[in-house]
């Protein structure tokens, strides 16, 4: 059979398998091996299946993954979110929608220490939602803020998603991590602007806090946060200046947060045990998918579909920005009914060569992709964060959560437009690196 046609058949088959509850790793691996076998024959296919899982995982860059995950878990256990939320409240509590703003700040700060937006959303929900409801903030607003803010953790380094993107596309993981800093801050700022507008238009949604706070209180409240801030600056500074590789930074960062959790007496033997087991489980799960995705990528390569795709896209007689925008549109649509990370594994080997050929920067495109993953996490009907939130309060209606999220989803699209209009946001910091 024509290899390119086989490539298309493979992609369709893969989507069908995924929709039919086949675990992502198994589906991707199966279609990869099968397709490679049909295109290149038995011998090469079996050899490929034998070598790729080892050669994928036994990569120095991959070792950063468990370390970033570990770091996030230690931060989670150290109760840092509660502290930062408290002090953020002292700083911004008197702005209209104060507690909601404090949630955004806490989310961004948690993101600076944790690489997973799943953990971030779950933690934020537990800490901030009861507090916001207690102070009379509209439930929908509270849900929307937490769902949206939880996603920032994927953009602000350390970020597991960035590492995954870097692995699939063989881009510099250090540069990708640094590239996420400014876009992450822009996203947080945009959420805060949105909250300000919402509350200004309808002050009833978020009653003012009438507590007097002295500047001294504000500064002393930062005391419990300095540990995390130091670790973040040290780790990211190390990556930025090239003193650390991302893997070393992960090791040092995990060690730092480990010591901090110990010092705060938040870590006992049982939590440590469970944490480590969780990390092993998450790493096994994620890297199992990635090795299978590499098998699939080999199939895509021999099917020559990526070349055909980029030839097709480049020879289109329309400006490249329109191609980029339609790719974005396609991903947004895909995100509505499909797990975006799985979609990334399937589509990136085909799409990225074309994007690079069109003259776009793969690091910047990584920022866009991670943002799209975030968007899909909060888009109804299947966004993961929606379901995390539904579980936090007993009498929550799914409709309430979704209504709360809609303005934030719209803001996410505006943020995406900003990233596209100003690539410097993503590329300025990495361009200064060696």
């Amino acid at each position, binding site marked *: 059979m024509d290899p390119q046609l086989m490539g298309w058949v493979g992609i369709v088959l893969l989507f069908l*398998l*995924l*929709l*039919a*509850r*086949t*675990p*992502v*790793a*198994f*589906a991707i*691996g*199966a279609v990869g*091996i099968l397709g490679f076998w049909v295109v290149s024959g038995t011998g090469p296919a*079996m*050899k490929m*299946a*034998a*070598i790729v*899982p*080892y050669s994928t*995982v*036994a*990569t*120095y860059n*991959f*070792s950063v*993954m*468990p*370390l970033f995950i*570990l770091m996030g878990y230690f931060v989670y256990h150290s109760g840092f979110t509660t502290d930062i939320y408290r002090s953020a409240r002292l700083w911004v509590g008197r702005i209209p929608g104060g507690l909601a703003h404090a949630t955004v700040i806490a989310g961004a700060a948690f993101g600076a220490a944790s690489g997973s937006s*799943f953990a971030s959303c779950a933690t934020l929900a537990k800490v901030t939602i009861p507090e916001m409801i207690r102070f009379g903030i509209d439930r929908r607003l509270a849900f929307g803020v937490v769902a949206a803010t939880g996603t920032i953790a994927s953009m602000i380094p350390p970020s597991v998603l960035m590492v995954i993107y870097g692995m699939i596309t063989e881009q510099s993981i250090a540069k990708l991590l640094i590239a996420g800093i400014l876009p992450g801050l822009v996203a947080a700022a945009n959420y805060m602007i949105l909250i300000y507008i919402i509350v200004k238009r309808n002050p009833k949604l978020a009653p003012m806090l009438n507590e007097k706070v002295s500047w001294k209180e504000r500064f002393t409240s930062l005391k419990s946060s300095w540990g995390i801030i130091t670790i973040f600056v040290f780790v990211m500074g190390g990556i930025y200046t090239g*003193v*650390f590789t991302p*893997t*070393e930074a992960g*090791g*040092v960062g*995990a*060690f730092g947060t*480990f010591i901090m959790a110990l010092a705060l007496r938040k870590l006992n033997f049982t939590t440590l*045990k469970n944490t*480590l*087991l969780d*990390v*092993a*489980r998450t*790493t*096994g*799960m994620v*890297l*199992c*998918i990635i090795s*299978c995705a590499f098998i699939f990528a080999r199939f895509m390569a021999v099917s020559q579909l990526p070349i055909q795709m980029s030839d097709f896209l480049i020879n289109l007689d329309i400006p490249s920005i329109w191609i980029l925008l339609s790719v974005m549109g396609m991903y947004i649509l895909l995100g509505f*009914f*499909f*797990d975006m990370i*799985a979609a990334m594994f399937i589509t990136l080997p085909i799409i990225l060569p074309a994007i690079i050929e069109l003259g776009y920067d793969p690091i910047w495109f990584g920022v866009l992709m991670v943002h799209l993953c975030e968007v899909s996490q909060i888009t109804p*009907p*299947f966004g993961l964060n929606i379901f995390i939130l539904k579980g936090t309060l007993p009498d929550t209606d799914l409709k309430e959560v979704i209504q709360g999220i809609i303005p934030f989803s719209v803001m996410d699209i505006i943020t995406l437009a900003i990233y596209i209009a100003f690539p410097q946001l993503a590329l300025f910091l990495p361009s200064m690196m060696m």
Partner: protein
Amino acid sequence: MIKLRCFFIKADSSLKSVVKALAWISSGIVFVMMFFLTADVVLRYLFNRPIIGVYQLAEFMVVGVVFLSVAYVQTLKGHIKMEVATSWLPLKGQIALDIFGYLVGIAVFSVIAWHSGKIAIHAWRIKDVSMGMVQFPLWPAKSLVPFGSGLLCLELFSNVLGDLAMLLRPADNMPEAGGESL
């Protein structure tokens, strides 16, 4: 029939304890890795005496973390799948699809286990070593791939049997479909 069932239950519980023990080793490696990399950074920048071979060892460690835990992930039903598109199906339909998914997994990972096993044996025979400052033998890390994949297949096989038993059970005493998704 009952004898056979007893045998499977026993085999399954010993499989589960092996898998759990390996998961502990896997999480131990993560912990050691953290200290190891920190020690390397400290020794290198403060004392200018890096640990030799740190790159290769870090690589071997990830192989250990991943392939010693893939079967454990399956015991928790932790290999993510998309459930939304099929959540409207009756429970038996979902279980049938799950069985199909596990069979796909067995197909993939038995191919991987068999052929990567041959590669591991080859690496052992020719005494293949890693490139770099220290020449570590490669067969221990390479044999983790067939080992972990093989265990995953066994675990999947036990899940298939378990799910089949559930399918054949009368509908009224069916337990709630559980499992963890991330």
